[in-house]
């Protein structure tokens, strides 16, 4: 019984995982701004903007008379390849691009190391991209193997290229929530699913 009381009180560690530039930080920022008024990190169009784990502790979310306290953990995007020349194409100078690439590789390693620490994970995918990438499958496969509850979010549904049906078809086992973290579209639906997710923890 005492154990139950402590479990109820504890902060739930909620991780944001996914490929680079899917909108993990944008979503984490949206949640943080909604409930604390502050942001968790900087977003950018250049991939691998988040290169270190970043947290926001004691984020209390009140939704339909339910209350949960989270530790939000925003992780660097997981990739199998990082080429500093890709950053040159984004307008970075050579030295800056090389530094970013080096930090990004460390970020991927760090993200994977943190998998075991999560109580629940939101996998953020870009709804405009092909969902059948091995990185997505590897992330979810690892969460399943570790018995960590997963919520799949398809971000950027405000864009014309977004294809929710394709994302849903790729993950028939999961409920997929289409959102736009940038504009706050379907955020209510996201919170609804988030509270359903935490029941599985």
């Amino acid at each position, binding site marked *: 019984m005492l154990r139950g009381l402590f479990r109820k009180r504890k902060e739930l560690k909620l991780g944001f995982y996914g490929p680079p530039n899917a909108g993990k930080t944008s979503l984490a920022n949206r949640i943080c701004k909604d409930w604390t008024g502050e942001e968790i990190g900087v977003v950018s169009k250049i991939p691998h903007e988040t290169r270190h784990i970043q947290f926001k502790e004691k984020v209390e979310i009140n939704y339909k008379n339910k209350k949960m306290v989270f530790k939000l953990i925003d992780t660097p995007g*997981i*990739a*199998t*390849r*990082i*080429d500093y020349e890709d950053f040159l194409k984004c307008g970075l100078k050579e030295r800056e691009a090389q530094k970013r*690439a*080096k930090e990004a*590789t*460390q970020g*991927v*390693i760090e993200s*994977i*190391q943190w*998998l075991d620490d999560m109580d629940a994970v939101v996998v953020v995918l870009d709804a405009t991209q*092909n*969902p*059948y*990438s*091995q*990185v*997505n*499958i*590897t992330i*979810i*496969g*690892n969460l*399943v*193997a570790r018995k960590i509850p997963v919520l799949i979010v398809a971000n950027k549904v405000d864009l014309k290229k977004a294809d929710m049906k394709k994302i849903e*078809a*790729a*993950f*028939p*086992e*999961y409920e997929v929530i289409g959102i736009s973290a940038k504009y706050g579209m379907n955020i209510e639906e996201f919170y609804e699913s988030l509270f359903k997710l935490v029941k599985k923890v």
Partner: protein
Amino acid sequence: MTKIAGLTIRFITYSEISRLSGADRIKKILDIVLENKIVILQGRLEPTEETSLIQSTMALVGRIKKFRGVELAVITPGQDQGVFDRFRSGLANAIARGREGLTIIGPATIVKQIKRDPSKVELMLRK
């Protein structure tokens, strides 16, 4: 071993790796990839081995000249029904992995992209 105009594909049978530890499997695969060869592995790695492979790959990017990482894809039976049908068809099967399916791993400097959808996998090579 197959050679097509400078491109080398190395097939690894399941029996070649089945008795190796996870770390040795990854080392074997990456050693071949670092020779600029594409590996086609019979079977699949465990989910945790896949992440270890990504971690080891990232540790090598920057340390080894011109190594930019890998392109990776796993083809599994029944994949056309959806990526996660294997989880639905049985978690034990999903986690056990084993010899079913094929794993393709190539150096990112040679393999530009592995395009996949439910019914096909295409290897796009760099010119």
